[in-house]
C-alpha cells in the first residue's frame, strides 16, 4: 500500500476508514436499514461493503497510475485544475458524514449495549472529542486509529458477537422478499 501513496494525508484516512467501517458495521446501521428497506435489509450492508471496496480499489488504481498522487491531485492534473479543490471539498464532506455517522453509532453503542447513559450526553461528549481530534495532525489520528483497531475494536467485536446465539436464522427465509422491494420503489 505504501508504494501507492506519497501523500500521508491520504494514506492514513484509508486506515481511519477501515476503523470507522469496522466500528459501524454492526451498530446504528441495522435499525435505519430495517425501517427503510424492510426484510431485504440484511443484504444491503454487503452491497455497501462491496461498493466501498470497489471505490477503494479504484482510488488505488488511479493513484498508482498517477505515480503516487492521490485521487484529488490526480484529478486536477488530468482534468481541469479546479477539480483538485473540488475533490478535496467532496472528501471533506465524506469525512463530515463519516464523523456524524460514527457519533451516532458510538452513542448508540455506549447507551444501549454498555448501558452507560443517555445518548444525547454521549453525542455531546463525542462532538467535543472530535473537535479535540481536529486540532491534531493526521499522523496522530492515524496512529490513534491503529491502536484502537488493535486494542479497542476486538472488545466491541466480542460484545457484538455475543448476540449471535440470539439470532433467529429462520427469519432470513425467504432469502429475498419480493414484497419488500415495493418499499424501495
Amino acid at each position, binding site marked *: 500500500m*505504501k508504494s501507492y501513496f506519497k501523500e500521508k494525508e491520504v494514506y492514513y484516512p484509508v486506515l481511519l476508514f477501515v476503523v470507522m467501517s469496522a466500528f459501524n458495521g454492526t451498530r446504528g446501521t441495522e435499525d435505519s436499514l430495517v425501517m427503510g428497506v424492510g426484510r431485504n435489509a440484511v443484504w444491503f450492508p454487503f452491497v455497501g461493503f462491496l461498493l466501498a471496496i470497489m471505490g477503494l480499489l479504484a482510488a488505488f488504481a488511479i493513484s498508482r497510475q498517477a505515480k503516487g498522487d492521490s485521487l484529488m491531485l490526480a484529478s486536477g492534473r488530468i482534468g481541469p485544475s479546479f477539480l483538485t479543490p473540488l475533490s478535496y471539498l467532496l472528501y471533506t464532506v465524506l469525512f463530515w458524514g463519516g464523523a456524524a455517522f460514527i457519533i451516532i453509532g458510538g452513542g448508540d453503542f*455506549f447507551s444501549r449495549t*454498555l*448501558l*452507560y*447513559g443517555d445518548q444525547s*450526553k*454521549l453525542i455531546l*461528549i463525542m462532538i467535543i*472529542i472530535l473537535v*479535540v*481530534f481536529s486540532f*491534531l*495532525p493526521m499522523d*496522530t*489520528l*492515524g*496512529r*490513534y486509529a*491503529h*491502536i*484502537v483497531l*488493535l*486494542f479497542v475494536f476486538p472488545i466491541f467485536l466480542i460484545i457484538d458477537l455475543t448476540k449471535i446465539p440470539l439470532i433467529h436464522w429462520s427469519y432470513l427465509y425467504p432469502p429475498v422478499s419480493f414484497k419488500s422491494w415495493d418499499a424501495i420503489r
Partner: protein
Amino acid sequence: MRALAEPSSVKAIMDRLHTIQTDAILDTTQLAHFLLDKSKWFSPFPLYQISERPDKITSALMEGRIAILAENSPSAIVLPVTMLTLQQTPDDYYFPSISGTFLRLIRFTGMVTTVFLPALYISINSVNQDVLRVQFMLALAASREGVPYPAFVEVIIMLSLLEMINEATVRLPRLIGGTATIVGGLIIGTAAAQSHLISNIMIVITATTAIGSYTIPNYMLGAAWRICGYFLCLLAIPLGLLGMSTGMGMILLYLSHLKSLNVPYLAPFNTFYFRDLFRDALIKMPKTWMKTRPKENRPHLETSVRNARKGGDQLL
C-alpha cells in the same frame, strides 16, 4: 555500529548537545531535559531512559538506539524510547521466551490495574450501579455501610495516603523504609477501616493498585501512569464508565501524538512493522526468531539482521 542508529537522529542529538548553555549539569538526567523538544517539556511520560546497567545500554545500542554518557555520572541516557522499551526488563530476554512473555503480560496487567481500578471503583459505586450483578452490588454496598462520604472521597484519601507512603519509602533510609511501609499500610489501613473512615473493599483496591504500580519497571513511567489514574478518577466522578472511556481515549490520543526522536511512542503497536509486533512486543519470541533489529529505530533501512545462522558478513 555507525550504521545501526538513524543518522538524522544522531545529528539531531549532536546539534542539540552543542546548543546547550548552562552553568552546570549535575547528572545525565538533567542533560536529558535539554534534549527534549519544547513541546514535550511538560509531558509526564518519560521520553528517554536512564540506566546504569551495561547490558541494557549495549542492548539499546544494538537495537539502533543512541546512548549518551556524561562525566561524573554513573548512568547513561538512552534515546529514542517507546512505551514498550520502558516496560521491558533485562529478565525478559534472559528467561525462556514463555516465561519472559508471561512476566511481560503480568507487568501490563499491573499497569492496567493501576490506571483503571480506582476509577472503576468510583464509577461502579457512584454512577453505573446497574452494570454489575445484583449480588456483587449488594456485597459492595454492605462493605460501604457506615462510611459517611461518597466513594470518590474514599479513593482520594486512600490514594493520597498511598502516594505519601511511596514517597516516604523512597526517601527514608532502607533500614527503616520497610517499617514505615508496614506502619502506613497495615496499621493506618486497618484502623481507618475499623473506624468506618473507609470501606474494607477500598483497602483491597488500594493494595491492588499499589502492587500493580510496583510492577512497572520504570519509576518515571509508573508516576506518569499514576497521574493518568487520577485523571480517570476525576472524569469518573461525574460521568462514570463513560468518563473513563473518554479519558482513556484522550490518554491514548496523547500517547499517539508523542514521539521520542521521531519514533512514535506507542511503536510498534501503531506502526506498520508487523514483524516487530509479533516478535518482541507483548509477546516475546525466542531470540533465534528475532532475526532483524526493530524497524522503528531505522525505518528507512531495508533489513538489519541481528541473528544470522551462518556467516558474520551478513550482520548489518
